[in-house]
């Protein structure tokens, strides 16, 4: 944490500046999907299903030398107040795209030429930071689908509100705050795969935000591993032995 930050104010939900919201990840929750995950990140509730590698439809979109990762981010009409239209917005399309770019670096796409890997994220309830929640769940779902990966991708945002740098912004902080920097990160490979910013920040504070978000990602990384161990009974076995 920064030394420049003299005072630390409690946040509106009582969290410390560098504290994540309560996080719950469950893997293998959809029987029909090849891989799936459910995440609760604060009051965000997101279900992700992964289908594939499977045949690409329409065929002309297939790539001869690698699989195509397709992401679909959609918010349910009841996920926000007031109700939103079920039609995809420009925001949905952009997030689908950055989600794909955030996940692609970790997936061995060259193992499955011509095929498609579909990642569908349904936001059931939104409370700020849905794209990071989606990426966290999608990673777990991809592993659950048995798709070989270079690393897990953990994602979380950092930002600034009331001149204080904070981790994992909630909806209120997202809207009222001065800046929001969502980051996705591969801890083992030490690479940033998602980086966006909204708001306004001096260069040094931006750098601090990235570091803060990476700290958060490292914590989430551990919880993602736990969720997977739980699904595949690894944690239990170790206890028994």
């Amino acid at each position: 944490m920064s030394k420049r930050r003299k005072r630390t104010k409690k946040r509106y939900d009582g969290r410390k500046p560098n504290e994540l919201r309560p996080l719950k990840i469950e893997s293998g929750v959809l029987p029909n999907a090849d891989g799936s995950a459910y995440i609760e990140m604060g009051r965000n509730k997101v279900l992700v299903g992964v289908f594939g590698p499977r045949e690409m439809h329409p065929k002309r979109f297939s790539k001869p030398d690698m699989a195509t990762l397709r992401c679909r981010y959609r918010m349910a009409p009841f996920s926000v107040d007031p109700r939103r239209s079920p039609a995809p917005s420009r925001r949905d399309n952009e997030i689908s795209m950055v989600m794909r770019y955030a996940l692609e670096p970790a997936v061995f796409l060259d193992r499955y030429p011509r095929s498609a890997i579909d990642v569908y994220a349904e936001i059931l309830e939104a409370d700020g930071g849905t794209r990071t929640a989606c990426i966290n769940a999608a990673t777990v779902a991809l592993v659950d689908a048995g798709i070989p990966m270079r690393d897990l991708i953990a994602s979380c945002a950092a930002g600034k509100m009331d001149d204080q740098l904070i981790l994992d912004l909630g909806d209120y902080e997202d809207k009222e705050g001065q800046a929001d920097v969502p980051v996705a990160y591969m801890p083992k490979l030490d690479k940033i795969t998602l980086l966006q910013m909204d708001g306004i920040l001096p260069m040094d504070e931006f750098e601090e935000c990235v570091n803060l978000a990476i700290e958060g990602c490292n914590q989430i990384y551990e919880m993602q591993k736990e969720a997977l161990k739980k699904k595949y009974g690894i944690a239990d076995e170790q206890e028994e032995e």
Partner: protein
Amino acid sequence: MSSKYGVVSRLKKKKITEVIASGKRMDGRSLEDYRDIQLRTGVLEKSEGSAEVFLGKTRVLVGVKVGTGTPFEDTPDKGVLMCNAEFSPIAHPSFEPGPPDENAIELARVVDRGLRSAEILDFEKLCLIPGKVVYMVHVDVHVLNYDGNLIDSSALAAIAALKTTKHKVYKVKDGEIELTDKKVELTVRKEPIAVTMLKIGNSLVVDPSADEEDIMDTRLTITVDEEGNICTIQKTGSEGLTQEELKIMMKMASDKSEMMRKKLSETK
């Protein structure tokens, strides 16, 4: 690597990567050089503000229209700024007619975020009747020729167009709005400049051409205002970035944005 706008053969990718690794570009530029930038304002008569940017062979036209409409529910006393981008099929053989694809949407949203985050307009001044009628400022980006780096050229054209915008004034009379003959300029308070960089192999380059964008590993856009604050960041591409690379890119963005801002002030 699949290509977004066309098939660049593996050979071409190899060649471009090799040339860049040796510190040069296919068109003879150095890694940190922009192509020639030409900026013209006031190119359209029927829109309240307009600008055209030529960045090498890339050509974008921005028209600003000012009208009235209902404000957003969460900001009832603020005017609205909206940015839209259209990839015209005349711009590139791979651009097809139809609704905006994800690249057009991204372009519009990144330009939009840059303008909005920097709070370039005094949105409270653009309110007519709180909760009912406000000024709507539409920034429409038309891509007329595509040769890479649409974000930087569109962002520059957008800010130049807004700076030259003069719109008719409405007055409020008995709870109704009425058009007057008076015209005022939009007050543009900030100058956010977008700088786009690519990582190709182990090298970083600015102002990518279409071929470079086709074969890139990672693309990062950083928008910087005149005080050196960052207003927007957008990363795309199927590779990760290290924190070291990010630091170099931040420095590059602040250097290059100064050069572009100079261009902007010369035009006014």
